[in-house]
Every structure is written in C-alpha cells, then in structure tokens.
C-alpha cells in the first residue's frame, strides 16, 4: 500500500545563531514523505514546521543553518513520471538512470549547483502570502517561464505555450492574456493559482505548500484545496502541506506529523491521529478547536493552559511538559522522550507509552 519513500528526514537539527542565544528551531526531527502521498505537518507558530520545510530546500534564512541530521532525497526515475512530463525533456540531463539515486540534501552547499538544480525542478514550494512571494515588477508569464527555461532547454515560444497550458490547468480563465498581467491585477486566489502553476512548471516530485490557504477566504480555500487534490492525481507529485488548521489536515492528509517546539510530538496516518491521538498535545489540540455543528451545544472549549514557551528558555525534558495534564514530576522534566513505535507507522514522543 505504501508507495516508495521520497524524502527521509533523520534527526534534523536546524538552529539559528542569534546575538541573544541559539534558537533550536528544529531539534531532532524524523519523518518520511512517500511518493504521490500528502503529508501534513501541523503545529502552532514557532513549532518549526516552516523551518523544516525550508531546510529541505536549503533556503533557511541567515543566521540559521542545518547543524545535524540527514535529508535523504530518493530521486525517482523521472522517465516514468505522469502528467505533463512527456512534454518535458528528461530532467537533469542525466539521461534516465534506472535506479533511484539517493542525495543527502542536508549535506549540499546551500549555494551550490546541485541544490539549485533540485529547487524548482525536483522539489518546489508555494508560500503563504502570494502577494509577497510573487515579484511585483515581472509579468506572470515572465515568472513562470523563468523556471521552465532554467531547468529545461525549451525555447521561448515553447516555454510560453507550456506556461499557458499550466495556467489553464490551475483554472485561470483566459490564460493566454494572463501571461501579460502583473500580480497586482489578480485576486488572492488567482495569485495562489499562479504560484501553484509556477511550482508545477517542471513537474516536481515533491510540492511543499507552506500554509497555502491561510491568507485566503474559506470559499477560496476550498477551491485551492480541491485544485491541489486534482493536480496530485494528474501530476502524481507528493505534497508536503504545512498548516495550523486541523480542518485542512483532515481533508487533505494521508499522513500527519504533529510538531511542538522544534520536535515531533506524534506521527501516523490521518485516521489514527484524529480518532486515536496518543500524545497529550495532539489530544488537547483536537479538543480545543471549535467544530462546526458541535460547538453550538458546547458551553466552553477545552483550552490548553499556558502558552508556547519562549524559544530561548525551552523547558528541560519533554517540551510539552509544563502544559501537559499528564505531567509526571521527576520524569517528564528530566527525560526528553525518545520516539516510541506503536506499530502501523505510528510514533509518539511521550513517556506515557514507554512500557508499550
């Protein structure tokens, strides 16, 4: 049932070295992304979900850098790709090696040639704010064809045609005219579609979507999520979706990673995360969201007490300890819980499950 592994992250640590101290934004994260599947990374702001995604592409902002760990990219044999790939010449020019190539992205030079070849071609990313991530002074067509021309040997005309096809595919009306428009002329939803078209221009194996619907309205969000699902069927890429919205997770995910303060709290398939959450943080998070249809009968929401701790003063032991209802003095504040396997690909970082 499981498709082949695409990305394997092992003990990833990305730290930011600031004057005030070191922020351990990502501190020992492990998870796997499978081909053609959707992995949702969920957590509150400051939990390191975006930094993890940026680490994969080696685009962590200064003064942050990957200090430890591996990001193994199992480069798929691209000739068997689906979707628009037949229009594209064989990527990376290697001429279709038949065996999977494994590249450790964490070891690559962030400015080097290898990672630049992967960015936008093998792995691409869409961001939260489509206004600030598109260039205001270049036309839509200009921005989409840039990536195509960089990674393939298409000529200008071919690249334009490919861009029009992509815009049509992401549901932009009159795509040929849109090539000449600037981002400010488009609505938020349309801009996000342009971002998606750009990200898919080289038929990537992995699309990282960092909060793609946070800045848009619910009805637009529904459109974008629907589009991502359709495109995944067509193009066959894996999606790593970063979000704080549990509703979006429930609608989109195959697998879920719950993060808290730079560490993985729990991971597993979407069904078990929502219906049998193990980590007290996941349990509390699920209880604290108002649910349509349910909440009108509720008097109060169960909230999680306290707040996410200051990154400079991380608690000792379990990161969630100070806010946890199952806190065990002497243990939770002393031991940083290791990964405990519960079978079926489920993994929880909590001492409550130590004996199992």
């Amino acid at each position, binding site marked *: 049932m499981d498709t082949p592994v695409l990305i394997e992250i092992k003990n990833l640590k990305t730290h930011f070295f600031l004057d005030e101290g070191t922020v351990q934004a990502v501190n020992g994260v492990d998870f796997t992304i499978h081909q053609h599947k959707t992995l949702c990374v969920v957590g*509150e*702001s400051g939990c390191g979900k975006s930094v993890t995604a940026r680490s994969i592409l080696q685009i962590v902002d200064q003064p942050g850098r990957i200090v430890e760990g591996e990001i193994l990219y199992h480069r798929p044999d691209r000739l068997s790709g689906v979707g628009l790939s037949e229009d594209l010449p064989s990527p990376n020019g290697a001429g279709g090696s038949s065996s999977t190539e494994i590249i450790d992205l964490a070891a690559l030079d962030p400015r080097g040639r290898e990672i630049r070849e992967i960015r936008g071609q093998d792995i691409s990313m869409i961001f939260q704010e489509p206004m600030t991530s598109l260039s205001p002074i270049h036309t839509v067509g200009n921005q989409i064809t840039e990536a195509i021309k960089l990674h393939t040997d298409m000529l200008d005309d071919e690249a334009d045609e490919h861009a029009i096809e992509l815009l049509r595919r992401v549901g932009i009306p009159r795509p040929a005219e849109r090539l000449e428009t600037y981002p400010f002329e488009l*609505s*938020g*939803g*349309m801009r996000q579609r342009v971002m998606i078209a750009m990200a898919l221009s080289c038929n990537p194996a992995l699309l990282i979507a960092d909060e793609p619907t946070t800045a848009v*309205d*619910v*009805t*637009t*969000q*529904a*459109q974008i*999520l*629907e589009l991502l699902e359709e495109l995944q069927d067509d193009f066959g890429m894996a999606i790593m979706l970063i979000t*704080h*919205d*549990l*509703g*979006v*997770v*429930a*609608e989109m*995910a195959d697998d879920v990673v719950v993060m808290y303060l730079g560490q993985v709290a729990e991971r597993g398939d*979407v*069904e078990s995360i*929502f*219906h049998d959450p193990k980590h007290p943080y996941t349990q*509390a*998070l*699920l209880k*604290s*969201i*108002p*649910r*349509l*249809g*349910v*909440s*009108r*009968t*509720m008097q*109060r*929401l*169960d*909230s*999680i*007490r306290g*707040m*996410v701790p200051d990154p400079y003063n991380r608690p000792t032991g379990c990161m969630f300890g100070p806010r946890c209802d199952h806190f065990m003095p002497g243990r939770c504040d002393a031991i940083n819980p290791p990964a405990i396997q519960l079978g079926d690909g489920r993994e929880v970082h909590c001492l409550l499950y130590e004996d199992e």
Partner: protein
Amino acid sequence: MSAQQTNGSQHSTSANGSAAADNVLLDVKNLQKWFPITAGFFRRTIGHVKAVDDISFQVLQGETVGLVGESGCGKTTAGRCILRAYDLTGGQVLFQDHDGKMVDLGPLNNNEMKPYRQQVRMIFQDPFNSLNPRMPVSDIVGDPLKINKVAAGKELEDRVAALLARVGLRPEYMRRYPHAFSGGERQRIGIARALALDPRLVVADEAVSALDVSVRAQILNLIKDLQEEFNLTYLFVSHDLSVIEYICDRVVVMYVGKIVEVAETEELFAQPFHPYTEALLSAVPNPDPRMRQQKSRIVLEGDVADPANPPSGCYFHPRCRYVQDQCSLETPELREIAPGHYAACHFAEELTLTGVTASGELG
C-alpha cells in the same frame, strides 16, 4: 444572555422596524458607507466602492451578534461605522444611551461622540499592530481611564492591575512593553484596554483570527466569561464560521456590502435560507478525516464580486448554483422567511439548502 432568547421572535431587522424595544442596544438602520474612487489631476470622483450598502440590523442588550462574510464584504467597515471611526454615507446608527433613549451616532461631531466612545469599544484583529510599541502596558490600558478622567494616581494603577488580573495577566508585568508579550498575551492586553471604561458594546473585529489554535480557545473562553461578568454586548466580526457558531447568539451574513441572511445561530447553521450561506458552511474544512468521502463540498466558482462594480440583480447570482433568470434582473429584498430568520433570496422558500447538523455532518 437569556433576555434576548425569550424575545427572539420580536427581532426586527428590517429597516422599518418599530420603535426600539427596551432591550435594543444598537439599531443600525440603512447604514451606507461608500468610498469614492478618484482619478485624474483634480482627484475627480469617478465612482464609489459601496463597501456597506444599505444594511439594517439590531443588537440586543447582552447578546453576541456575529457579522460574517468573506474579505471585502464590508463587515469590518460596518463595525467601524458603528464606532464612528468612519463618517457614514447614509443611514443611522442608533445607540441606547444610559437613560434608555436612542441616540443617532451618525451626525455627532467628535466632541459630542465623546461619552459614547466610552460605551462602545473595540478589540482589534492584529495584536502586534494594535498596541503602541513605545508605551508600557500600564499606559496602554490606563490611558483611556486617564483621558476620560475616570481615575488617576494610585487609583489608576489599582484599576489597571485589576483589569490585567481579570484578563489573566500578571499585574507585575504592567511596566513592560508589548514586545515582551506573546500574541495571546497581547490580545489579552487589547481586551483589557477595551474593558477599561466599562463599555456596554464591544466590537471585536477578528479578535481571535491571528492567534494560534491552543491560545484561540483560551481567548474565546475569556471573551465569553467577561460577557457574563460585565453584562457585555458583543458585535463579533469574523470570517471563521466555527468561531462564530461557538460564540454568537445571532448571525448576520454579509456579501458585497449587503446583508444576505440573518438568523439565530442554531437556525442559520442547521437550516440556511440563502445559497451563499450554504456554500460558506460547506467550504469550512471539517476536522474529521472520516467525513471526507461523505461530504459533497460546494466549491464556489470565481471570486467575490467587485464592490465598485457589482453584478446586476442579486450580487451573488454569477456564483450561485441555483441561479434563475429573475436573479440577474431583480435585487432581492431581505425578508422574513421564518420567524426571526431573514434572507435576501428570491427563492428562499423553494430551495432546500443543506446546513450543518449537530453531529458535525452535512445533512
């Protein structure tokens, strides 16, 4: 909280609503706010963005009314008109004064507005931009008291300390500046500031939208608790339907500057009468992966209409799945479909729309 429930059937949201009942705190009548579009060297007005176009609704004493809609629908503008942060283009904002008389806030000048600015307060969306970074918390919360000469000196300090304690902050921290606080704490400061003058009406504009999930629940609970304690009335502006459902007694749905539906929360969510409300409800992602297959999500096509150049007839007709010829010709009036339940749709009675059942399913 209970007063308005017994009077539920008396709600009058139409413009010709009778003289206010005793418990009507805010009566918005035909409110209009148009922003001019200017062009050319002389800044000639060439058109108007009809941000709020002829809306009427009432807010009863002690109730929470939700104003919901997508961005650009005019919900924030409506809230700001009520606070008189904007001058009105037309219509009335009737507010019940302490002595029970209804006062129209619309034509008042700054001086005349002063007493009402104490009674109508606002909680802002963005806790990072709405607090002055150069003022310590004691000034942020205390200044409204000082300016209105409510308290001074030691008494002022005590009141600020009590307010901070009430919203769940440690009074010792009142000398600190906003940067020292997290998003949730800042929002608590914003709430304390809004409550400093014992307001009667609080306009909360997307008060929890910028907060994290775990903190959002705390703030929503706090807002509910404070309502009971201080007998507050809220106008809760939000785009998040699950939050609206949790906190509001009645909901006003807006689309491109107009009200499309008004009803008690339970009714609106269970049995919407306007196709836009139905689509909004169905667009909310359900936090239960098992619902994925069962759900037939209505995905609206296109974007929200441009308020500077709205479509003819019913503004929603280009995106409506039940559209008929009449819709593009005639503008539907907001009319009472069921007791206390108003909708602006020609076919409200004929359509069978899907709401959200109590179990969270769409059914």
